């Protein structure tokens, strides 16, 4: 059959082009829909997009110190490190005036930044500034600025201090990201490993991964049967069971975590019962908390509902007749489960797995409280730099890497399972 397609524009009965008429009719609806979501949009922008954007900017931002020492840094870049042991006279001269005339508060901020690069900068500069101010007050003009500096403090003749400038001389810097991976810049600005005693992030990253993977696996192993029971028990039992699942969910995280300390510590409930039963001796009490094991146990329990609920929502809609049909067709129960039931729970497994993994990888309070020294996760470092060292650039870099990892997982997940396969309820 031949189909003729009219090229002429379609018109409404009144002769207005159809598309235009449709747009007009839909405009009001579109506007209304937009106005309805606008408050939420605003909320998300203000509380979510902007803070994250700000933090991501901070992770590469070094502009503050560059506004304090612009001339010095510019001269510094001309230093041929291969030819001269120390920077040229011009660098010392610029620094002299920038310290003498600079805003005290801004210099203070910059000093904090310099101390991240090399500890010792703060006291050195403070001492030097005092001396410089004296010289300026007297109205003397040094013959050699370099010698003056070295006379004030011999560290000004130590090139390692000058090398640490390498990571600060640009407005935008990747140094925080390298720091977050136990790397730093050497004298030539190349990326090298940190000193051995300063390497701690890679170790923590690996532990964070290990703990997250284990917690996800444990949650799956423990949560799967519970979800299956929930989905298949008669309503009155499943309701009771659901309350058991949700009750911890509604209890404060802090309470649950401290409850685990009570349970697991050496003089705690579990050790007490084991000693009482004679399974272990009084001297042989097991260390179950303030280490990685404690972190694993507590996090698994706390994150369990995030695995159970998506699994439950998927299992609930799998008709019971499927297992029956599989058996009727000749499959033994184990085979029927493996071939028919399990594949249908994959959306739930992947949703729960992704949820638990993503929550675990950024977990903070629980590992902080029960983790002890070797059970801390990367979140603890972020909190430490946020509150104690105030090195927000490093904080932001650690957070940025975390975000990146999650996005990679999301992407991988989408590739392998397909994101529209996810089912949370």
């Amino acid at each position, binding site marked *: 059959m031949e189909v003729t397609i009219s090229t002429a524009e379609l018109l409404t009965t009144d002769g207005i082009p159809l598309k235009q008429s449709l747009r007009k009719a839909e405009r009001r609806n579109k506007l209304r829909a937009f106005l309805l979501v606008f408050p939420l949009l605003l909320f998300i922008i203000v509380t979510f997009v902007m803070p994250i954007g700000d933090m991501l900017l901070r992770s590469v931002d070094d502009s503050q110190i560059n506004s304090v020492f612009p001339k010095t840094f510019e001269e510094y870049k001309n230093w041929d490190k291969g030819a001269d042991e120390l920077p040229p006279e011009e660098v010392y001269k610029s620094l002299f005036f920038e310290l003498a005339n600079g805003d005290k508060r801004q210099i203070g901020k910059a000093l904090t930044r310099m101390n991240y690069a090399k500890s010792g900068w703060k006291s050195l500069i403070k001492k030097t500034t005092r001396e410089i101010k004296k010289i300026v007050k007297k109205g003397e003009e040094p013959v050699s600025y370099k010698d003056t500096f070295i006379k004030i403090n011999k560290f000004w003749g130590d090139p390692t201090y000058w090398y640490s400038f390498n990571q600060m001389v640009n407005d935008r810097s990747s140094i925080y990201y390298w720091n977050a991976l136990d790397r730093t810049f050497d004298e030539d600005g190349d990326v090298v490993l940190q000193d051995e005693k300063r390497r701690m992030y890679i170790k923590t990253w690996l532990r964070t991964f290990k703990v997250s993977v284990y917690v996800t696996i444990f949650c799956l192993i423990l949560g799967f049967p519970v979800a299956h029971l929930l989905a298949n028990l008669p309503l009155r039992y499943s309701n009771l069971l659901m309350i058991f699942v949700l009750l911890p969910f509604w209890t404060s995280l802090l309470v649950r975590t401290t409850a685990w300390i009570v349970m697991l510590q050496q003089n705690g409930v579990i050790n007490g019962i084991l000693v009482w039963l004679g399974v272990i001796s009084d001297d042989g009490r097991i260390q179950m908390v303030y280490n990685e094991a404690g972190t694993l146990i507590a996090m698994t329990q706390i994150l369990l509902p995030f695995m159970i609920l998506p699994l439950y929502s998927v299992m609930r809609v799998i008709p019971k*007749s499927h297992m029956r049909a599989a058996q*009727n*067709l*000749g499959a*033994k129960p184990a085979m029927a489960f493996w071939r028919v039931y399990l594949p*249908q729970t994959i959306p739930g497994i992947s949703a729960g797995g992704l949820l638990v993994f993503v929550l675990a990888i950024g977990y903070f309070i629980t590992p902080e409280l029960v983790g002890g020294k070797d059970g801390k996760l990367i979140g603890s470092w972020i909190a430490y730099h946020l509150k104690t060292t105030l090195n927000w650039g490093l904080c932001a870099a650690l957070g940025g890497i975390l975000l990146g990892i999650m996005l990679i997982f999301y992407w991988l997940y989408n590739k392998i399972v397909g994101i529209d396969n996810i089912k949370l309820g």
Partner: protein
Amino acid sequence: MNDTSQSFVKFEKIDKSYDGEVLVVKNLNLDIAKGEFVTMLGPSGSGKTTTLMMLAGFETPTNGEIFLDTKPISKIPPYEREIGMVFQNYALFPHMTVAENLSFPLEVRKISKPDIKEKVQKALDMVELGNFGTRFPAQLSGGQQQRVALARALVFEPRLVLMDEPLGALDKNLREQMQYEIKHIHDRIGITVVYVTHDQSEALTMSNRIAVFNDGIVQQLSTPDILYEKPENSFVAKFIGENNTLNGVVRELNGSSCTVELDGGFGTVKALKINVNEVGEKTQLSIRPERVSIDKTTSDSNNFSGKIEELIYLGDHIRARLDVCGNNEFIVKVPNEGSFNHKEGDELKLSWNSEDVRALDL
């Protein structure tokens, strides 16, 4: 067919209770011959699906034994019974394609790959879905899914096929079409079928024999025509086809017939004695609407009149609802021969043969 020594499936004194208080199936004795198409028909909650599930192995009888091919099967798990089943909502596996669904029972039986392929194709061709192997169940219409479920239940050549209201989810036209199709497949391959439905027309269309269930008891087991024409109790009479009832008291027993005095003093009716035993017993008379004649008199004393309450024009016939002997739900089907010119409110002369009236239990 009813010879028990030849029976392929035999239910013997089966009782079933879920809670120990209520019997869902009571003393079920049923014999099904090889190649027979037997339907269990009954309202919901009558125990028919439970009976089917016991046969499939998903429920255990509380008492009694089921024999398949003379062997007791209560101890055999469902996956070793070699019984195919079409489930109510098909129970197709959504994560497998149609072909994978069909090869599943063959794979678990460790049949070789080329054989599987051939059998699957044959089964798909049988239900006229030869080109649909690569589709997923969700991409098929209800009727196509139904056929796939049927093919899957047959592909591993089971000894017996069970069907649990397989057409319940289809619309009317498709349902009728599938009824014939299932019947034809049954005729062609000669497999024994046990079919469960609550739809009497479905049962009448397809079955060799029908077991009418109510309250966990088989009320009557017979061929469709006997069930319709000679119901043995008032439940069957009411459940199968359309039925007019008149209540009364037995006044006289006379061999295979009896005389019944209608309640409310509307006179007496001569009827066949089916389910009444003594004079003075209360009874319910059952007359099929098409056996009631209009404007004729019979030699029997069964001549009455009724007022037309409602007339419904149905093309080939006119359906008249009358008030007869105190029953205002009395239906008469008048063939549309062009001569019927009564209006609502008119009185009609009615009559019927005493052989067409059955005195049943109340």
